[in-house]
């Protein structure tokens, strides 16, 4: 059973995600005794060995790491021309690097953004920038620590595909896309803030028989 949600439905996934091999020497970073997962924006995501060692299936649609895409573009060119190559970014990688690598961002059929932990909200801004500033129109997929309680936010920021973490039910997650029916602020899914979508009541209308009785001037 697929754990991919696309356009509000669970669908089969015909893309293969290409991972980077583990680095030769693992540079475990610690902070106050805790292993640090998060990297600073702009840090390199892979070593040359990892990039050359990434195993790309010989056929079929693949989503490759940005570092692999940048370094092995020639090798992927023929497949990319057939719209069979997508690219995924770590939350700390720079969109600018991806943009510089293609003449037209919409030549990519799929971009995926990795959430190393669900609390890493950089992916929300990366998605927003892809959809607004860079006018990307094709599939935008959330991968990694993708859980139902962040789905609504992801959707509003322009993600249209969600690869739900494999130990969780995609079926359950679908329900969370409808957590709120009419949000306040504009976002990618609907750029209009609530006051441009609805005629809202002013004080006069609100106090005519609504929730709070208007408080009369003090009683002396």
């Amino acid at each position, binding site marked *: 059973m697929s754990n991919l949600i696309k356009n509000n439905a669970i669908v089969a996934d015909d893309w293969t995600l290409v991972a980077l091999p583990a680095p030769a020497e693992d540079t475990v970073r610690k902070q106050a005794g805790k292993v640090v997962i998060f990297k600073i924006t702009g840090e390199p995501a892979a070593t040359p060995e990892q990039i050359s060692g990434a195993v790309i299936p010989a056929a079929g649609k693949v989503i490759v790491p940005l570092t692999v895409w940048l370094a092995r573009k020639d090798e992927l060119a023929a497949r990319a021309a057939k719209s069979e190559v997508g690219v995924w970014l770590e939350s700390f990688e720079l969109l600018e690097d991806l943009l510089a690598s293609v003449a037209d961002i919409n030549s990519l059929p799929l971009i995926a953004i990795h959430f190393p932990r669900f609390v890493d909200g950089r992916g929300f801004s990366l998605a927003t920038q892809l959809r607004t500033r860079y006018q990307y129109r094709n599939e935008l997929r959330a991968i990694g620590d993708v859980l139902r309680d962040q789905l609504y936010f992801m959707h509003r920021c322009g993600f249209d595909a969600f690869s739900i973490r494999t130990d969780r039910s995609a079926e359950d997650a679908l329900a969370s896309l409808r957590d709120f029916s009419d*949000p306040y602020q504009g976002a990618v899914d609907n750029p209009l803030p609530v*006051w441009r979508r609805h005629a809202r009541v002013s004080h006069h209308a609100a106090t005519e028989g609504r929730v*709070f009785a208007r*408080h009369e001037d003090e009683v002396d």
Partner: protein
Amino acid sequence: MYIYDDIDQRIVDERVAQYRDQTRRYLAGELTDDEYRPLRLQNGLYIQRHAPMLRIAVPYGLMNSRQLRKLADISRRYDKGYGHFSTRQNFQLNWPKLETVPDILAELATVQMHAIQTSGSCIRAITTDQFAGVAPDEIVDPRPFIEIMRQWSSFHPEFAGLPRKFKLAVNGARHDRSLVQAHDIGLELYLDSDGKIAVRVWVGGGLGRTPILGTVIREHLEWQHALTYCEAILRVYNLYGRRDNAFKARIKILVKALGAEEFARRVEEEWALHKDGPGTITQAEYDRVASFFAQGRHTELPAQDASFDAARASNPAFAAWAKRNVHAHKVAGYRAVTLSLKKTGIAPGDATAGQLEVMAELADQYSFGELRVSHEQNVILADVKLGNLFAVWETARVHGLATPNIGLLTDIICCPGGDFCSLANAKSIPIAQAIQEKFDDLDYLHDIGDIELNISGCMNSCGHQHVGHIGVLGVDKDGSEWYQITIGGKQGSDARLGTVIGPSFPAEEVPGVIEKLIATYIETRTEEERFIDTVHRIGVAPFKARVYAKEAA
């Protein structure tokens, strides 16, 4: 004040349902502790030393009597019959049960209240001047802006997972009472040379472990762009703010690392793409929201009231209260009143359910049924007629709400500290109480005059100790509780951070240290000089010498 329409109400109701389901899944083991933590935090629920603590939003500190009665009711039914007003102008319950929080939220929703984003790594409740709308020095009423910003920031999808908490304050008065320079974003509203409302944008201020005052990154922003500009700031922060170290994750660290100029450049570049977009505030929306805060409900009164003057002349206790707890009002014949939650022996900011109801009743009788919470942790009746002040005082006095100490040494700002908070290194409430007991003589307090004493139990600085004239910070030294003292900090338009006077002290020595600081001031002050003025005139050294004299001998 602002009244919900169906859209606001639906969002709050849907939030209750969402949080109820999240809690159900957590209790059923479908969400791990790590997964549930950010969800409950963004709903104001901390797991504390003894029990969870629930922080309920009081947007910009404004509430009505019905809401306050509901808080009293909730504190009786779900807690121990009291609550705590915080330095974020919010209301906290110290003993709710985790399982009952969805029910508490459902109760709150019936009076248009919630706990949305009162904690967690998101845009927090936006704060302002407790005298907004009534202060004589006000230039622009900040409340319509904050209400528009409150709505914009509620469940903002792009900023639901920021590197760290994000606090905004808005000031619209000549004298800043909102600490704009100590916030992640501080907005100052003013009238520009064309007489139009403009915004001065401060970024990167904050207290906490690394106290820094903010920097102005834009001197003049047309008010219509407040949301798109803040979005640009938040986007730059969300993308580039550090996440590898929680202590370096606030925006102030990013602004410092990039330099304010480079930070501003990135913001401007991002903003240029969205300026004049749909997020631009329209005059119609501003007018609609402003209509809820419109003036014009006051009665026309003379500037003087004979009964008030007579009561003040004949009753010294009332006169002392009127001097400290009654504040000027922009409308003739009206005053704002601070109900003191700083009675000696009571934790600063605490109020019982009974006191909450008394305050609600006072608001109904004398102040348009509305109340405000100040960041100094007191409650304000903002619109009281001069002729009613005596009656307010009599009732407040009976219920322990009329301690005439506003702005005096015992009007201490104090976080819940080690008695309640699991982040704290040290207790803060017993320190506040010991100081209040030491300085319980009212005449002496009035003689000492205006002074701000702020206490925090740890460097998270909820008690704003860095900007206290005297700041007390609890620190952990080899497993025991010690207190570091700063002097010379200051809030306001000319805010500054205090200077540490020297090595820290054990709890029992703190009141004595305060006494020596005060004695130094009393002996050195010139006429009309406040404590803070003396510190700035003569410097920290004489105070330090006095306090550490024994050790030196």
